[in-house]
């Protein structure tokens, strides 16, 4: 259903419709929130599931994200990016929080709290919706990346590990991690440009 909706009304119209729905949400319109949910719950849920890994946790993230949208719609500046971009940012933020809480369930005494260095997922996302076909092609590009590039990118984006944590886990120097993540992103950028009509 989600794909059909996208296909019929197109990317720019989705962004406009989202913006209008968010403005109605600010005024307390529950139907407008439901509209945003119907368009993007799949996007939020799928990303959450990829990050947290378990279905009940992904459901919790979905609920947290839409509760946050309801509470904070008035604070979101729609000129900063699309509503879908904001949803992705919130999803990543809530899902990574959850992942960190879980990781922290090792005895507190074993964690050096002062040195916990985490990525900040709250960068504004200029999200352009891609079609299922474009997503499939990009997924292939990601999967075809050399493991040395792909793994650091996945650990950074989907697992929220800092670059120093990635370096430690993979046993490579920090500078190498940065370079490889950058290479992977540039490859994806080029593939994204090609995938667009």
């Amino acid at each position, binding site marked *: 259903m989600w794909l059909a909706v996208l296909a019929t009304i197109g990317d720019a119209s989705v962004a406009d419709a989202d913006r209008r729905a968010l403005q109605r949400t600010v005024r307390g319109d*529950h139907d407008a*929130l439901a509209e945003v*949910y*119907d368009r993007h*719950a*799949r*996007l939020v*849920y*799928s*990303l959450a*599931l*990829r990050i947290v890994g378990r279905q009940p946790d992904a*459901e919790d993230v*979905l*609920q*947290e994200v*839409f*509760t946050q949208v*309801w*509470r*904070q719609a*008035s*604070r979101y500046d729609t000129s900063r990016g699309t509503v*879908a*971009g904001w949803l*992705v940012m919130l*999803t*990543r933020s809530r899902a990574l*929080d959850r992942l960190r*809480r879980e990781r*922290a*369930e090792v*005895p*507190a005494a074993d*964690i050096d*709290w*002062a040195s916990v260095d*985490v*990525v*900040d997922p709250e*960068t504004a*996302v*200029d*999200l*352009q*919706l*891609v079609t299922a076909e474009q*997503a499939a092609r*990009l997924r292939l590009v990601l999967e075809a990346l050399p493991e040395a590039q792909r793994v650091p990118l996945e650990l*950074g*984006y*989907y697992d929220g590990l800092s670059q120093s944590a990635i370096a430690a886990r993979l046993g490579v120097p920090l500078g190498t991690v*940065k*370079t490889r*993540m*950058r290479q992977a992103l*540039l490859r994806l*950028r080029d593939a*994204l*440009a090609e995938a667009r009509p």
Partner: protein
Amino acid sequence: MSAAPRDHDALREQIALYAIGALPASERSAVESHLRGCAECAAELATLGPVSGALAQIVPQHDPPAALRARILSSIAASDRASARRPTAAWAPWLAAAAMLAVAAGAGLYAAGLRERVRTLQAQLRVALDRVADGERRVAVALRNAADAEAPLAVLVAPDVRRIDLAGQPVAPRASARAFWSRSRGVVLTATNLPALPPGRTYQLWFVTPQAPISIGLVKPDANGSVRRLVDTRGDFPEPVAVAVTIEPDGGAPAPTGDKYLVGAAQ
């Protein structure tokens, strides 16, 4: 203001990571100030911007369970009315569910605005009840049973409330707990399956801070190993990075000495 070339090279390397939100906050500001003065890096950021959104969309796609839609939307409506819209509250999902339970339990405080939705809500509530996790149910039951239900509720609906999940440690793997901490109103601890205490021993609750653990109070579980405890931590208590429950000699200890039974990190 242009950066030195060496900075430019180092920071340019960071642009891609910045674009996908993979930089820690400590490294973001240097990138941001460089971006303001460097057209080349700003242009690179513009081309990389869509990659983050693409990464979010190329994960395997799954539809959320259909029943979730009604649960989420109605719990938002319920918590909304319950709290008279606090725009800044970061609500944990269980809280919305707990608010629904409070409504159902007859806390008629919120009834006025709900009248037209009550019938729908009752149907949705049955669905929600089935799905509410044990911990959530425990909180609601504990709240209902509390002789003084208002004080914990005040913590739970505080705009700055944060939930901290505590996991049972190796000495008590079945134990679990949740702490709800509000800087302005105090902390509520609910725990279950704590092992029975040997004579002369007590459980003690701690806020772990970067400096040292701070005692928050003693905790005595009931015969079932359950605890519901409200502690007034308003005032000078620092923000916890973790919350822990240890076993200590009766009367408590100034610093933790015994085994850790429950530990959870604040997010």
